[in-house]
């Protein structure tokens, strides 16, 4: 009987389907696993693998028209009773008494997953009212206690605030407090740190671990990040297209993966742990080359008074990739946009060297000069969905900059076909609309559009952040191939140290609008000089479960550096 008491949740052959016009879509197709008390099971997989639907099936909160087709989800209670959640009516009283009380869930987007018009105290206390009928003043006491547990500063005033008054990390703490309200025995976390910065992610992971220990919860953790898996998992479930590819202890998954897909997934993560091969073999750029772009003492203050870019100086040499790394709010995106004068910086200079050797200060350039410069300096955006017009065909999207530049007729068609081939898309797909393409293909469309006018410098803003890890290295490889073919320079903006290390020659670390460290990538990564760089690097989850290092990370506070765990 010991297995019954240890195993809280026993999922057997779970099948969740979504009826579509073309038949049944099997989002979860025969998934089985056990969740044990005090353990963390990580469900890992790329987008569309069905990991999130699996989690939602347990609470029967799959979005309509999805439904559980067959299988069982056996919940065992400490008193020995069991319930098959899969058999309960999704709108019924029984499943509702499980939700939030015995099994609680936290979600990816803490901003949109919390109501913007209700105070956080109300939202946290609600579960208490629903499940225990706790009176209002007792609710408040308990909520304050929860807020203290999740380490939200000044709980007495925080309790009456709204979600938008908190930072992303604090919002996720609110979510966790909400989930803990009724002392659940299972916590399901659906990509809870994906929308957060690495340092914030490390804090949240720490917190979950700590609370898991103190509450004795079982945690079902859904993530696409193998680094996170390595840091926190006891057991791992690898999913691909609704099916379980492999299941086992974390050490086995990382060090002796049995399944081909698991091996590929780990391979693409490990690949990003070091510099790209094609960059290792390349001859260094001669030191004496005059820079293509030289930014001097650039500053931008928004009308709100926020100094987004503060005295930034950097240079980009021809054929070089300069990485800009920093967390959200560090001003890296704003800085990138200043380079194309999407924003108007108030001070400094952005000297850009035209092909004829003449330099233009982009900050003060007139309209005619700016137009010429903008043909040579292009941008790739983060969101491959939002940055492509849904009402234009892919051919039209790629042709647009060419058409503006005056290319017409057959020449235009041929150039578009060339560009599509160059980025690895079939020219025959030119008549399709963006929605017919996957995320990775859409990003390729964005790249084709950016290189259409044979630019010399591309500012890539988080160009790979929205992509799955296996696509990420492919995209970076493509960008480096194009760099060598076309002699491009990149300013590569990212929050992800691994992609910076993989592809960038030099890197600038931004913190609160300033560049705190700038140097050769290898040197910055291996021997960081600034406290913030060290904190940033130490917060990155390391995809090797035998070398968990996040616990020994550094926290950076201006003026001093201290270890996170004393």
């Amino acid at each position, binding site marked *: 009987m010991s297995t019954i008491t240890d195993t809280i949740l026993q999922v057997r052959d779970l099948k969740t389907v979504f009826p579509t016009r073309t038949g049944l879509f099997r989002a979860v197709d025969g998934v089985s696993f056990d969740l044990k008390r005090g353990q963390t099971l990580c469900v890992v997989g790329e987008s569309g693998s069905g990991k999130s639907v699996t989690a939602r099936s347990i609470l029967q909160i799959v979005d309509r028209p999805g439904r559980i087709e067959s299988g069982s989800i056996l919940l065992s209670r400490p008193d020995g009773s069991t319930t098959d959640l899969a058999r309960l009516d999704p709108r019924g009283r029984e499943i509702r008494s499980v*939700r*939030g009380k015995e099994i609680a869930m936290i979600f990816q987007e803490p901003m949109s997953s919390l*109501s*913007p*018009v209700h105070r956080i105290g109300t939202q946290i206390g*609600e579960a208490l009212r629903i*499940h225990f009928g706790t009176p209002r003043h007792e609710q408040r006491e308990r909520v304050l206690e929860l807020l203290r547990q999740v380490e939200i500063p000044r709980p007495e005033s925080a309790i009456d605030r709204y979600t938008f008054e908190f930072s992303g990390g604090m919002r996720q703490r609110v*979510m966790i407090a909400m989930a803990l309200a009724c002392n659940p025995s299972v916590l399901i976390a659906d990509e809870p740190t994906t929308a957060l910065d690495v340092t914030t992610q490390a804090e949240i992971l720490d917190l979950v671990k700590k609370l898991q220990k103190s509450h004795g919860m079982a945690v079902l953790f859904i993530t696409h990040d193998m680094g996170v898996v390595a840091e926190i998992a006891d057991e791992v479930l690898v999913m691909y297209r609704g099916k379980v590819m492999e299941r086992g202890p974390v050490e086995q998954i990382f060090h002796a993966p049995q399944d081909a897909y698991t091996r590929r997934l780990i391979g693409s993560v490990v690949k990003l742990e070091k510099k790209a091969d094609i960059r290792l073999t390349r001859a260094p750029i001669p030191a004496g080359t005059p820079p293509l772009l030289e930014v001097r003492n650039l500053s931008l203050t928004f009308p709100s008074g926020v100094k987004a870019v503060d005295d930034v100086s950097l240079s980009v040499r021809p054929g070089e990739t300069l990485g800009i790394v920093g967390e959200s709010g560090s001003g890296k995106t704003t800085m990138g946009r200043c380079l194309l004068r999407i924003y108007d910086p108030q001070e400094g200079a952005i000297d850009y060297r035209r092909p004829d050797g003449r330099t233009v200060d982009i900050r003060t350039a007139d309209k005619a000069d700016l137009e010429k410069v903008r043909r040579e300096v292009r941008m790739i955006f983060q969101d491959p969905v939002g940055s492509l017009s849904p009402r234009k065909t892919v051919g039209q999207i790629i042709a647009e900059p060419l058409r503006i530049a005056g290319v017409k007729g057959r020449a235009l068609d041929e150039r578009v076909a060339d560009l599509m081939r160059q980025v690895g898309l079939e020219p025959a797909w030119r008549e399709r609309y963006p929605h017919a393409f996957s995320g990775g293909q859409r990003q390729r469309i964005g790249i084709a559009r950016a290189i259409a006018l044979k630019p010399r410098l591309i500012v890539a803003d988080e160009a790979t952040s929205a992509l799955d890890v296996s696509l990420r290295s492919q995209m970076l490889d493509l960008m480096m191939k194009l760099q060598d073919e076309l002699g491009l320079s990149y300013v590569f903006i990212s929050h992800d140290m691994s992609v910076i290390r993989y592809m960038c020659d030099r890197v600038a670390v931004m913190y609160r609008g300033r560049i705190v460290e700038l140097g050769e990538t290898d040197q910055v990564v291996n021997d960081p000089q600034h406290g913030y760089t060290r904190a940033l690097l130490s917060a990155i989850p390391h995809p090797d479960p035998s070398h968990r290092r996040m616990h020994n990370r550094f926290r950076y506070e201006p003026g001093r550096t201290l270890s996170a765990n004393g």
Partner: protein
Amino acid sequence: MLRYIAKRMVFAIPTLFAVSIVAFIIIQLPPGDYLTTLMADWASQGGAVEAGTVAAMRERYGLDQPIYVQYFKWIAGILTRGDFGISFELGKPVTELIWNRLGFSLLLSLLTLCFVWAIAIPIGILSAVRQYSISDYAATFLAFFFLAVPDFLMALSAMYVMSAWFGQSVGGLFSPDYVDAPWSLGKLADFAQHVWLPVVVIGLGSLAALVRIMRANLLDELSKPYVTTARAKGMSELELLLRYPVRLALNPLISTLGWILPAVISGEIIVSVVMSLPTTGPLLLRALLAQDMYLAGSLILLISVLTIIGTLISDILLAITDPRIRLQ
């Protein structure tokens, strides 16, 4: 919060000023003035008018002065003495004529708004929650049907049905016995018996827009992640619906107050004429036909002021219900 309200009020002032100018210009737009209309009337009755008389009258009414002088005299009178000028046709000060009617107009509009909201919100919720069901289609069809039927036709049909089939006294807001009686419980009951018909007739025309807005807002909100969060807390579906998505879907609806109010007021004008209600509608129509400029101008101005105040109220309500606006 107080700063927000103060700011909104300050913004309302230039709007009001612009409205007064536009109102005055609109009155002046048709060719001729009150006297031309009057002369035409006299001529049609066979009376001959000497040219000197017309000129003298024009001078007496101040109509010989340039339009901006007339405007400034009018607006200065309103601002300094609360004097809206004189109705040429009725020979009485405008203020004496309109306050009572304006009160009824306002009351009728408010009742109509309450009625429309009370009907539109539940129907909108039902349509959204049961999207593409029979009830959704039926509600949508009916709402659009009432939108398509002109107000006056609806008023006539409603009056016919009520008086011919149910024998109810229709037209006006009171039975003849109570029109001039002082307010009493009996008069209030009589008012209630009469007022619901115009309220329904005016309200049904605006129903469609609100139902569709509520439905669309709610459909957006229903798929938001916070709904899933609340569901994962174990909340019952009905409580969940009312507490979260409906609560958020109401916010954009509040901001429709600004434009639903003018729609109700203009609908009220037509319906009031048909049902001979003692509101500003029939008076305005008569003043416009007679080119009784101060009366018409004052009415248009006051109706616009009510609309602006309505918008102001909706802004303030929105700030109260949505912390995001309040804390900006």
